């Protein structure tokens, strides 16, 4: 059974040479076009024809150099960005942990953020409240339960994000380099959680430059380079190829 099916995925970003974010700028720009100047922009394909499927109970790693499209891919899987072509089919509840934090509001307290995040993930407030203690305990943030999020360090925010996310019982974990800012103790806790997920046959998609982590947890690995899928298959082989390429060039 497929948990995630990625079919012929293309994603394009337009990078204008001069960025226009106001109506005034747009009017000014339109006048320039009338005068013969062209509105120019760079087209940038972050993903080109990416195809793969993840089966039930599988975990996959995603490796590739900076700007290879890893984060874009994860955001499309999490339905935050939409592709230009192709599609992604997913079964089950997805918890994305992208680039620090999972969608928190800086002006709200730890508890309030947990409630909002929980309700985004489909939990009732009563359910979140009953799990609040284990969230705070796991993230070791008991003392900061009423602190505003903006007053927490980035490591603390990430710990909270991870702790809340695991309490919402997702089927699919989408993790983008999130563990890097946690301290050693917390990283170890997370690894133990990962082991539990795997035992429960849940899916993890892990973007990481920590190749030993990928090797430890992911049966399969996807190697992206400049938006193209270079290889997808058994982790050992793919990671070795990635390392070879990096060393070779």
């Amino acid at each position, binding site marked *: 059974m497929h948990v995630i099916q990625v079919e012929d995925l293309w994603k394009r*970003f337009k990078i204008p040479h001069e960025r226009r*974010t*106001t*109506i*005034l700028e*747009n009017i000014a720009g339109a006048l320039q076009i009338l005068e013969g100047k062209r509105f120019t922009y760079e087209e940038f394909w972050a993903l080109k024809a990416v195809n793969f499927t993840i089966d039930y109970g599988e975990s996959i790693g995603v490796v590739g150099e900076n700007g290879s499209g890893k984060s874009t891919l994860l*955001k499309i899987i*999490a*339905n*935050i*960005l*939409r592709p230009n072509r192709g599609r992604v089919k997913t079964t089950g509840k*997805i918890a*994305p942990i*992208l680039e620090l*934090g*999972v*969608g*928190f*509001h*800086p*002006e*709200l307290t730890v508890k*309030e953020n947990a*409630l*909002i*995040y929980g*309700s*985004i993930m*489909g*939990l*009732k*407030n009563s359910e979140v409240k009953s799990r609040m203690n284990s969230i705070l305990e796991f993230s070791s943030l008991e003392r900061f339960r009423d602190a505003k999020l903006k007053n927490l360090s980035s490591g603390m925010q990430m710990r909270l994000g991870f702790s809340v996310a695991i309490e919402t019982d997702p089927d699919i974990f989408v993790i983008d380099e999130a563990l890097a800012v946690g301290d050693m103790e917390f990283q170890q806790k997370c690894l133990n959680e990962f082991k539990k997920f795997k035992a429960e046959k849940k899916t993890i998609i892990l973007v990481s430059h920590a190749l030993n982590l990928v090797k430890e947890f992911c049966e399969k690995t996807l190697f992206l380079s400049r938006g193209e899928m270079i290889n997808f298959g058994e982790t050992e082989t793919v990671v070795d190829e990635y390392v070879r390429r990096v060393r070779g060039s």
Partner: protein
Amino acid sequence: MKELFQYTELVKNLTIKEFKLRYRNSVLGFFWSLLNPLAMMVILTLVFSTLLRAGIRNFPVFLLPALLAWRFFSTSTSMSLSSIIGNSPLVTKIYFPRWLLVLSSDLANLIGSSLEFIALFPLLVFLGMKITYLALLLPVILILEFMLIIGVSLILAPLNVYYRDFNQIWDITLQIGFFLCPIIYGISLIPEGYTLAYSLNPMTRVVESIRKILYYNTLPTVADFAVILASGLLLLLVGFLVFRKLEPRFAEEI
């Protein structure tokens, strides 16, 4: 609509969040929001009954309900204008139907304005008005106005993601709107030839209806309700179409 059902808890939490964030930074909180219309009332009463001698009987009662009705519209729309970009940490990190952000912002204002109207009643009595059973129509009119507000918000919020100076334009539009609606003057001042065009403005109808039930003690007409309802439905439709069209690229443009 199905989404609304699925995400009731989220809408509730986001609304509470909006409401808290608005009043959190001041101890007096909600009372500050009452101070603004009250100050307006005092100033305008001074100007219109003492200086200009407009000759409107009990001017504060003439003005205040209309002012609150307009405030409901203007604060809601200008706040929900930034409801998407104001929540960029959520929009760029996790998926949920984005229009719920707009809805929650408007709902927080619905609660705020309802409280303002509740606080209005003792004041009206104090100013010598008799509250009649007609006041029961107030919630109906506010809900109809709320439809207009959501429709407009669903158009404004996504546009503001793409054009960041949209809030300036909307500010000016609201200022013009304030004088285009019969808030500080009565509809009877409008010259014959303009009345039709004038009365097609749904906010004119809202302000007039509220004034009718709280000041003139008469029933709003069927036409009042029809204009508000029809424009509300139209705005909702346009709003949903605009929103659906612009929503997919929010996370990129934000």
